[in-house]
């Protein structure tokens, strides 16, 4: 071959062996395996139980198919799906002012002091750490069953997540325009309003659409604990052993989730295209 194409060749020198790295690699592998063995044991994974339950699941599916597509079922199902959508929408929109305020306090560069920065980060961490289902259970006890506690729960959790994401976006922004306005004598709030926020608006809007998508899906789960929407209907039909109705609801959910996901993705694509224009 060398003679044919005439290219010069050199033997590849052997890689230097690094016994320490090798030992570390083996130790890490052993650790990962050990952790999985413990997890397997703790969660009582059992293929036997799965095999024994096969008949039960077949019965369940047999009763669910075909779905009950009569209008008495489909009508309320669509209506509740719409409620689920509204819960997700308001849960996202109503969290915007709180997320923005906390994000500005929790981003280096806009935080007025280290103290405010730490406090805002702590509040965001707390809101993120409490799952929305737990917020929903709390608000259901407080204001009763229905979609409203679902909205409140989503707002609380979403402020935690979106505030954090927005704060990161603010920190990643090009500091140049902010520096220019600071040297022109603008104060902190003016710099945020005239340099920082206009620069990162597409990123913030993209994250907002992503959270809307997630929140519509979350509001389904909230329905299961009594916070309104189509999740509530799914829960009811399981409790009443009406599995064909349950399947109808699930199909409606699939359509809703796919539609919202498409919409969110399309808007985000447009935003990132507009950025390069």
């Amino acid at each position, binding site marked *: 071959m060398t003679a044919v194409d005439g290219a010069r060749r050199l033997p590849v020198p052997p890689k230097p062996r690094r016994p320490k790295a090798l030992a570390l690699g083996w130790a890490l592998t052993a650790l990962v395996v050990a952790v999985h063995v413990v997890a397997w044991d703790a969660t009582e994974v059992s293929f036997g139980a799965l095999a024994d339950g096969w008949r039960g699941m077949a019965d369940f599916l047999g009763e669910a198919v075909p779905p009950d597509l009569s209008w008495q079922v489909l009508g309320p199902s669509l209506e509740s799906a719409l409620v689920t959508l509204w819960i997700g929408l308001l849960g996202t929109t109503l969290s915007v002012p709180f997320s923005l305020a906390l994000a500005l306090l929790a981003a280096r560069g806009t935080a007025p002091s280290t103290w405010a920065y730490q406090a805002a980060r702590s509040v965001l961490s707390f809101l993120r750490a409490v799952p929305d289902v737990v917020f929903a259970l709390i608000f259901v006890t407080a204001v009763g069953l229905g979609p409203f506690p679902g909205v409140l729960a989503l707002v609380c959790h979403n402020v935690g997540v979106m505030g954090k994401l927005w704060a990161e976006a603010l920190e990643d922004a090009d500091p140049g325009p902010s520096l220019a306005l600071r*040297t022109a*004598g603008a104060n902190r709030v003016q710099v945020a309003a005239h340099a920082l926020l206009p620069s990162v608006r597409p990123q913030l809007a993209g994250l907002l659409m992503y959270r809307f998508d997630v929140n519509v899906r979350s509001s389904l789960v909230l329905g299961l604990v009594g916070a309104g929407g189509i999740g509530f209907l799914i829960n009811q039909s399981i409790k009443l052993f009406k599995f064909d109705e349950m399947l109808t609801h699930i199909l409606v959910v699939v359509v809703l989730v796919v539609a919202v996901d498409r919409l969110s993705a399309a808007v985000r694509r447009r935003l990132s295209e507009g950025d390069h224009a």
Partner: protein
Amino acid sequence: MLALTDITVRYGERPVLHGVDVTVARGELLAVLGANGSGKSTLLRAAAGLVPVEEGRVTVDGRPRDRLDLAVVFQRIHLVRRRTVLDNACAGALGRLPLRSSLLGFPREVREEAMACLDRVGLADRAHDRAGSLSGGQQQRVAVARALCQRPRVVLADEPVSALDPAASEQVLALLAELAHLEGLAVLAVLHQPALAARHADRVVGLRDGRVVLDGAPDQPVDSLYQVLEAVS
């Protein structure tokens, strides 16, 4: 107009400027030349108050510097690319606007003043375009308009043309010289190309190792500023 007296700046232990004296008169474009690391950008930053000055004074018309007296034009332009040319120019006025009137759009008188500044740099017809859609040279002229909208008495330009092509560089420097001569501003421009300084500046100052080593006519030989030292300490 602008007087930098006995300026000493250190980055940590390392002194970058040793007691530098530089003045810029009203109506004068002063070019500051020097090799990389000579301290010329640090001098501009010290004048603008962007780096702490260990010793020395910065005065404008004999009085301690007021931040609004000095406008800065940056090498990397630093416009908000997504906003309109007009909004970017208006932002220069933020320092004298009360917070309330600056949050919900700029007041009419500021917008009209910004239009006049854009007209001054020859870009009034692009007022409603997005800043990011302009060429580099045009963007730097918008940055100059933003600086003008600050109503400064001194303009500090930090390598304003090193990201621009030759034709745009000529245009921007001609604009800075014109502003000095016609509007009576004191303009200090840090430059990388001695040829540009020779064509547009009224005077040049050369820095080497944090000291002023030449000060005078713009067309004098400046090669000594850029000679490589044999032993780099």
